[in-house]
């Protein structure tokens, strides 16, 4: 048994921290909220230099051939400084392609980052709902997945609407799931193809690049990834956003602890009061639980694939709540100043509120945990 970071993983994490420290991501996040989108740094070249686009692609196709846990370490570093690196969209897309022998030709430029992919999030069935579904643009009713039809030339034509697709604006290739004669198949669609429209949308957190993707008979390459890989991409995305969220919790906790040591009231550092101390240990408790579940998810994806949906969903569930709680605690510990525009705390609060509603939302992940366990209980 070994649940510790390897030397290579420590190096990967430190290198990521170093690379991202060259950018003033928090200042940029605030400026972007004020309407100056161009303030956000283009971090893709730094990501390419670090080799992140190819993290989950086999070495034979120019990638690093690493595991989901390594990708989670990088996402955690992005989350720490709210760095807008387009990995949440790119990595699950490459995971589907990497599991599709027919798509081997697409991988090389995606490994180097010369081309960027975005994953079209499609939620696999659970114990209560049989079908594959997507996030809606409004409200709570989840529409069915995109539909594919044979184009008579070995490919497919795909139609459907996918809302709030991470990192879709500016992506070169869209990779996801569509239903062909009722069966889920992997599809890869050139973003520049006819029938593809990507509308950039902004909601509450300017560092999060999102797009509404509309497909009308968009020409697609059919992928031969097995169904588990299609579902696996969804769960991978859950694990990645969980890791990113926990990175943000780390910063929220560090800033809160630092302030609780230096700020004095009634003649004492506020961190000496139990009320403040207990609130901060609660953030730590949730953070540590989340970290443990990242290990679970990282291990399960290779070591116990049947448990990966449970592990990734549990990580997402805990991380989503940890981020909300951590961000709110950061504001409370700082007092009124923590709720002002000049402070960094609101940036983390905004990140928390939007993140928890993306990719099916923390709620759907929590429900899947229950469903997976009820299934285990039925089988026991």
């Amino acid at each position, binding site marked *: *048994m*070994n*649940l*510790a*970071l*390897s030397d290579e*993983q420590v190096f990967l994490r430190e290198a990521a921290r170093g690379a991202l420290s060259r950018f003033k991501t928090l200042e940029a996040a605030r400026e972007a909220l004020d309407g100056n989108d161009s303030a956000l740094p283009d971090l893709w070249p730094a990501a390419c230099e670090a080799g992140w686009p190819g993290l989950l692609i086999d070495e034979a196709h120019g990638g690093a051939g690493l595991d989901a*846990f390594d990708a989670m370490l990088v996402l955690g570093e992005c989350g720490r400084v709210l760095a807008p690196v387009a990995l949440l969209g790119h990595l699950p897309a490459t995971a589907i392609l990497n599991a599709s022998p027919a798509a081997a030709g697409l991988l090389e430029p995606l490994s180097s980052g010369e081309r960027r992919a975005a994953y079209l999030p499609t939620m696999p069935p659970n114990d*209560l709902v049989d079908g594959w579904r997507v996030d809606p643009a409004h409200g709570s009713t989840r529409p069915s997945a995109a539909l594919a039809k044979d184009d008579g030339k070995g490919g497919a034509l795909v139609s459907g609407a996918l809302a709030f697709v991470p990192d879709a604006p500016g992506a070169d290739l869209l990779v996801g799931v569509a239903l062909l004669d009722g069966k889920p198949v992997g599809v890869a669609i050139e973003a520049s193809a006819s029938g593809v429209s990507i509308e950039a949308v902004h909601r509450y957190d300017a560092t999060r690049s999102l797009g509404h993707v509309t497909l009308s008979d968009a020409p697609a390459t059919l992928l031969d990834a097995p169904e588990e890989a299609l579902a696996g991409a969804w769960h991978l995305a859950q694990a990645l956003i969980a890791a990113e969220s926990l990175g943000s919790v780390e910063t929220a*906790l560090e800033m809160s*602890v630092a302030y*609780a*040591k230096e700020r004095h009231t009634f003649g*004492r*550092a506020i*961190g*000496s*009061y*139990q009320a*403040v*101390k*207990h609130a*901060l*240990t*609660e953030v*730590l*408790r949730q953070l*540590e*639980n*989340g970290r*443990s*579940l990242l*290990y*679970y998810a*990282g*291990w399960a994806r290779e*070591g116990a694939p049947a448990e990966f949906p*449970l*592990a990734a*969903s*549990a*990580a997402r*569930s*805990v991380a989503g*709540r940890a981020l909300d709680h951590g961000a709110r605690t950061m504001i409370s510990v700082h007092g009124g100043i923590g709720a002002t525009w000049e402070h960094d705390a609101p940036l983390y609060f905004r990140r928390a509120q939007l993140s928890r509603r993306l990719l099916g939302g923390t*709620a759907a*992940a*929590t*429900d*899947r*945990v*229950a*469903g997976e*366990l*009820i299934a*285990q*209980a*039925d089988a*026991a």
Partner: protein
Amino acid sequence: MDLDDTPEQAAHRIRVRAWLKEHKGEAPVIGNPTHPDAITDEAEIISARRAWQGKLAEAGLAGVTWPKEYGGQGLGPIEQVVCNQEIAKAGVPGILDAIGVGMLGPTLIAHGAEEQKSRYLGPMLHGDEVWCQLFSEPAAGSDLAAVQTRARQAEDGSWSLTGQKVWTTNAQFSSYGLLLARTDPEQHKHKGLTMFILPMDAPGVTVRGLRQISGEAEFNEVFLDDVKLDEDAVVGGVGNGWGTALTTLMFERVTIGLGGEGLGYNSVRFAKGIASDEHGRRDSEVRRQLGEISSELLAVRFTGYRTLTALQKGQIPGPEAGLAKVTIVNGAIKAGDLITDVLGPDALDEGSEWAYMISFLPGLKSAGGTEEILRNTIGERVLGLPPEPRLDKGIPFSELRSKEGATA
């Protein structure tokens, strides 16, 4: 990063599994009243479990981390976990004296005199003599260094002990107790303490069961009335009791870390409780709560593996391991509440699987230090937050009580 056995651990597991397969039939049957060989009499259960502990120790399945010279295997914590896992898998009871073998024995190994080790460790490991931990008192729990049980030394070097201990597991059938007493009230609180070995049959020792919410007595009170001990009953030197106690508490954290889901509060069990109700298992609010509780309980399992990894690398688990206890207890409390909401008053029937758990948990919240004190410790030691101002530093223990009165 992996959860697999190394080749050595796998070989160890095969040996353990083979032994259990061969000797499973010799294990006492308890907690299963419909079984033809079931033992239900309390005294018979204890003696059968002691005998079974002896067999486990003989076979090298208990005290795995103890040095070989004291009857252990001289192996690492992972090998002990492998034994625990296989014992659980085989469906047989583990050792009776987990407190002795897991916490008090290792304390004697670390601090005891050679004669104490050779006299006590063997019978402890084999279940011939069960041990209990006499630390907590009515006014010294989370603030353990406030113990008032007084040990006075006579001219001839012998000791006389008077006071009261509480929350003592297994005291009713223990042969010995490891006891923390105050030997010098004129010293600062943490300084004037000494650790003793107490024979539980010594004149002046009275053990009384302490009934709790469930109606059962899971713990005891132990009264000491002028109990005489020889000079050689001292462990680790006079005045060094606090350091010795910290060793025991450290092994307590290790035991919790190795125990993992040993309390049986795990996510699949709770899911089973919900799944038995056709409506509850489909209700989105019930599922949300089950999902939230279970996610945290799953996390604790992997926190345990992280602790084990640290132990294997020779690191000692810090107070943050205590957060796992907070998660388990609060998670189980919420789960019991949710299951009762779903199943209704039937879940509170004495015969139900849940009634005992629901009764036991409110007390467990304070076991091994209250949640509030734990959060203080973690806030200070792990997060580095400044300590709460204290009134008990730098003054003799004897003056502390009057000072407490003055600020009340």
